């Protein structure tokens, strides 16, 4: 049984806020999430109890920490329903997306090939392909969005053609929060011979990921958006694809042998992509984060986040001065503007009430041409948010005026 007040006790920042008279209402969970005590403990336990490097099997401590590190890989694999040798630890979703763009783009993209993406894409997934396209004289095309910013199977079908070699797509857009029908899109892309790279940064923390069932080729996500530490993320790739592409960088830990003539024998995936000492403590923290998510369960997470979103939307849609951009999305992302008030002024006003949201273009600069606004306010919910917190932002948005925003500087 999900009990939000109990869950909030697991998060030191929320616990502290509960004991303080100063409100701390964190509604920027798409940017990063707060960390439960179990994750913090896993990170500090590495430094207090282990502290040594991984993969130095000659002494017990290293053996133990390596074992713990590799167990995390198993935990991740089972969490996303992949095989363990298909899980590469990276520095985060951006690093994962760059790794694929470099590795796959370098090897397989030819002149006149097309990389298909969407107008709602995050900079981290599309910018690496801009570079591939320019180096390989390939081009980028975009799936047109519906008027309210969605990607439909129909639109996607129309955008696919034989020259498309790669589809880069976010499972959940970080601006509009729509969940794309990834399994169906993947099937269509595969029927044209294209591979599908999924940016799962916004989806993996909130809905059950099934890489095998969806048949996607690559998936990138970050630990810090799923209650884990910063500085670590994952690249999932089908094993034969990981085996066929080159690593983004080389170094210790990724090679099996090399000689003075420059011959390098790389290790097998996933290790060939993991040169250098990784953020060991963050990887161990990721394990704790996944265990935390699993202890709550995606059924409860989806239900609670959806209830909060519905509650918020039902109130906000009554306000004539609030423009909602994605009332029908199903994820916990609510995008809006207070008409006549720049998003940044509004966000700073909300901050004066202890409410944290994101203002701006959310690293998806192309989308804003579709929305016809340079920037928006984004509320992004997590299961640890409450109806009372929603009430606080509803009240603040009910009474917001440009004058009140300006008065904050006096």
């Amino acid at each position, binding site marked *: 049984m999900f009990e939000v007040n109990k869950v909030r006790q697991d998060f030191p920042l929320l616990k502290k806020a509960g004991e303080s008279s100063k409100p701390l209402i964190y509604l920027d969970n798409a940017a990063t999430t707060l960390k439960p005590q179990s994750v913090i403990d896993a990170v500090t336990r590495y430094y207090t109890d282990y502290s040594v490097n991984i993969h130095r099997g000659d002494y017990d401590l290293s053996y133990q920490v390596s074992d713990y590190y590799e167990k995390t890989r198993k935990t991740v694999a089972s969490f996303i329903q992949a095989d363990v040798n298909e899980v590469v630890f990276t520095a985060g979703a951006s690093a994962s997306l760059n790794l694929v763009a470099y590795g796959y783009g370098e090897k397989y993209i030819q002149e006149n090939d097309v990389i298909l993406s969407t107008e709602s894409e995050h900079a981290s997934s599309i910018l690496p392909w801009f570079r591939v396209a320019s180096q390989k004289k390939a081009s980028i095309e975009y799936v047109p969005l519906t008027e309210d910013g969605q990607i439909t199977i129909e639109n996607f079908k129309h955008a696919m053609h034989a020259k498309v070699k790669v589809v880069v797509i976010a499972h959940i857009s970080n601006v509009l929060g729509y969940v794309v029908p990834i399994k169906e899109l993947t099937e269509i892309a595969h029927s044209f011979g294209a591979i599908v790279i999924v940016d799962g940064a916004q989806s993996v923390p909130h809905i059950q990921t099934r890489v095998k069932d969806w048949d996607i080729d690559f998936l990138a996500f970050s630990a810090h958006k799923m209650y884990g530490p910063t500085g670590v993320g994952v690249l999932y790739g089908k094993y034969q694809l990981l085996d066929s592409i080159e690593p983004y960088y080389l170094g210790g830990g990724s090679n099996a042998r090399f000689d003075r003539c420059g011959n390098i024998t790389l290790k097998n995936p996933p290790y060939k992509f993991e040169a250098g000492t990784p953020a060991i403590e963050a990887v161990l923290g990721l394990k704790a984060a996944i265990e935390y998510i699993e202890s709550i369960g995606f059924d409860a997470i989806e239900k609670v986040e959806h209830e909060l979103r519905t509650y918020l939307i039902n109130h906000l849609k009554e306000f004539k001065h609030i423009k909602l951009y994605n009332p029908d999305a199903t994820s916990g992302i609510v995008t809006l503007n207070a008409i006549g*008030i720049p998003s*940044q*002024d509004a966000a700073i006003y909300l901050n004066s009430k202890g409410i944290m949201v994101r203002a*701006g273009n959310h690293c998806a600069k192309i989308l804003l041409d579709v929305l016809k606004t340079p*920037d928006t306010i984004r509320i992004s919910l997590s299961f640890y948010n409450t109806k009372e917190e929603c009430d606080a932002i509803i009240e603040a948005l009910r009474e917001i005026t440009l004058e009140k925003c*300006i*008065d904050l*500087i*006096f």
Partner: protein
Amino acid sequence: MSDLMKDPLILRQIIMDHYEYPRNHHLTEDEHYHKAHMASESCIDDITVMAKIEDNIVKDVCFDGVACTISTASTSIMTELLIGKTVEEAEAIVKEYYKMIELLPFDEEVLQEAIAFHQVGKQANRIKCATIGFKAIEECIKEHKHE
């Protein structure tokens, strides 16, 4: 401190007026203008300021772009303050403005309507907004001096 500065209603009115009706709010194709584009990574501000400086006089200043209330109003006020001033006078105004932002003693006479921002320095998250236009005009003046 003058009475005007104590009355937030008047100061707010100044800011609202310059936000809703920004002065010199356009750009030009004229090649005699210096141009400074200021885009902030952490906020929405993305403005371009252009200035025509001839015979050591700031003949014209204009700007356009996407920006919050504080950025728009402060840049609008800046254009009005600097047009017609000598380069030295313009530099002195900018210097005085930064003093105010840093909450140091400053000359109210010189800053005129810009005193609406005399408290902004207390809010770290708005200092960038309140100075973006002034930073841009500094760039223009610097470019002019390098010619």
